């Protein structure tokens, strides 16, 4: 097996629901991913900097407060500015269906909501990173 996939899991803004991100971190680690957690209450700018510094393959943003459109717009811009737009960007949490396409238009690669299967997420990341 080549280098493990590195993923930065991030909480942006004031939303502090952590169950999804806690479970995902553990499950991805058990599947051989290298997981870095941003900590709570981060700004999009800080997340983009951390992604650059840690040279991750994937950034995963968890949002359950409804602020996903606002945060992802800024994060995607920062990622472009910093030349990180080749990295996979995924979003998880409470995201209404009608926001999925607009998120993708901003540069989000995939959205996972409640009930998403961990094997599916891992499989998606493996194929997206190697593509």
């Amino acid at each position, binding site marked *: 097996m080549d280098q493990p996939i590195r993923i930065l899991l991030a909480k942006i*803004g004031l939303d502090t629901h952590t169950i999804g991100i806690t479970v995902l971190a553990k499950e991805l680690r058990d599947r051989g991913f290298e997981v870095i957690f941003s900590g709570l209450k981060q700004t999009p700018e800080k997340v983009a900097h951390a992604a650059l510094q840690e040279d991750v393959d994937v950034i995963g943003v968890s949002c359950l407060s409804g602020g996903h459109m606002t945060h992802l717009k800024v994060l995607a811009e920062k990622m472009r500015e910093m030349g990180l737009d080749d990295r996979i960007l995924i979003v998880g949490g409470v995201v209404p269906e009608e926001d999925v396409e607009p998120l993708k238009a901003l540069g989000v690669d995939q959205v996972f909501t409640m009930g998403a299967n961990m094997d599916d997420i891992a499989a998606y990341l493996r194929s997206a990173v190697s593509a």
Partner: protein
Amino acid sequence: MSRASEKLKAPNDSGETLWRTEYYEPAIADTGERKTRFQTQSLRWDIKPLYTQADLDAIGFDPDTDLGLPGTYPYTRETRPAGYRGDLWAMTQVSGFGCAEDSAKRWAYMVEQGLDSIIVEFDLPTTNGYDSDNPLCRGEVGRAGMALDTLQDMEDALDFPLEKLKNITSVCNAPQPVNLAMLIKALQRKGKKLEDIRLMMPNTILVEYTCVGRYIYPPKHGLRLACDVIEYCMQHHSNWMPLNIVGAQIYAARGNPVQEIAYSFAMARAYIDELLARGHDINRVAPMVSFITGIDMDFFEAIGKLRAYRKVWARLMKETYGATAEEALKLRLMSSPGTMSMALQQPLNNIARLGIEMLACALGGGAHTINTPLYDEAHALPSEDAITIGANIHHIVAQETGVADTIDPLAGSYYVEYMTKRMEDEVFAELEKIEAMGGALGALEAGYFQSELAEEQIAMNRDFHTGERKFVGVNYRVKKDEQREIEIFRHDEAAEARQIERLNKVKSRRDEAAVARVLEKVREAARGNTNMVEPMLEAVELYATHGELCDAMRDVFGEYDPNALTPTL
């Protein structure tokens, strides 16, 4: 174990062993049991096919000392002598969004729907102690609750038929002294008699550090502010409930019933010990403490939990604190169904779930108020449809089923009594463990609560993915290509700009020098050890903002490092 040895093991087993060998085992001999393991949902206790007197004997159950009668120690059968035959529970829902006038309009609608209690939720900028114009709050103003910056917002928010409510709960834990001051001043300005209002405040900061995250200051300062609020109410508004420890959040963070009760009570001990150290009497402190419990789909875990809650509380207050007043021994409880079971998929199924959970609340008893989340919970803030149906679920259970017509109707059920007693024993064992860590603050600082809950989160997630735990529409009987079948509430993106305009307007007409002086007064109080509510009352009247007041305390207390309490991943 062989059948013969089982017979030998339990000579007084009410015939269960014999029943097993002669009836049960032949009945399943060909097809086997439906599941490889029968376990309760979150405690994962093995469930036997049958419970009898032998199970109660084995755990030392004695109806005289373990049950008592409704309104008598240890209150297992109900804290209030008349149960729900006197008064039904107050019917409530959580609500709050946008600016003050948006929320007031919504609350008026809720009162019209027959709700007689409201839980006011504030947005994340407010609960984290920022004004709406703070850059950190982009996109969050008025989203997850009502935006609150100044006394003007609180006054406008109370523009609805308040007098129709049995109680009102204001959820603003980290900045609770600011919030309390705004509530008191707004109510006075509206000409309300404060003694006619029953105000409840979660003020549950230790739960925030444990599993919710809306904290500002380091835990010992958080605890001090919470105790200032309790102390102020104890002295001035003794019919209010200034501490509602939200066990429901511990449960929502996947804590099992034993963890929920034990962590909640360990936290209660931290507040109580601080107030006793300030020289107050346990018989006056204990009645200030109440709890909010989370109710989920495992029916008997829920009922056992409700009964164990009040019994353990009574024993803890009597045996550990030597409380003697009845009001100190009686648990005050709000029940909150739907804590974890509101599925995103096929959301109308959630109506059935809420009905069942509400039934468990009514049967388990003990709650003065029952809160219903709504069937669209996983999608967005509630729509008006969801509010109406949520209110009707209360009335259907209360008025159509007859379950509220006799008190503690499940008492004496072998299984229910077994669950109740076993939970009680395990809660006491867990409480002892936490005491040995230095109580709730020690356990929190050691990361104990957080890592125990993280393990439960991972285990429960696996139970869903292996199908061990079934969730209709989510991992069982899943609908292919499901389209959303309900209308959902949409956040008004313009609320943020409107709120900032409101804030600027208030700021433009206040006396800046007076505000600066009062903010210094707040800092001074924070540096000392006088009650923080008093200077807040003065400050909010001068229109010092919520964020400014929280900042003044930040200057003295510092901020808690948000990563220090994150569960070890």
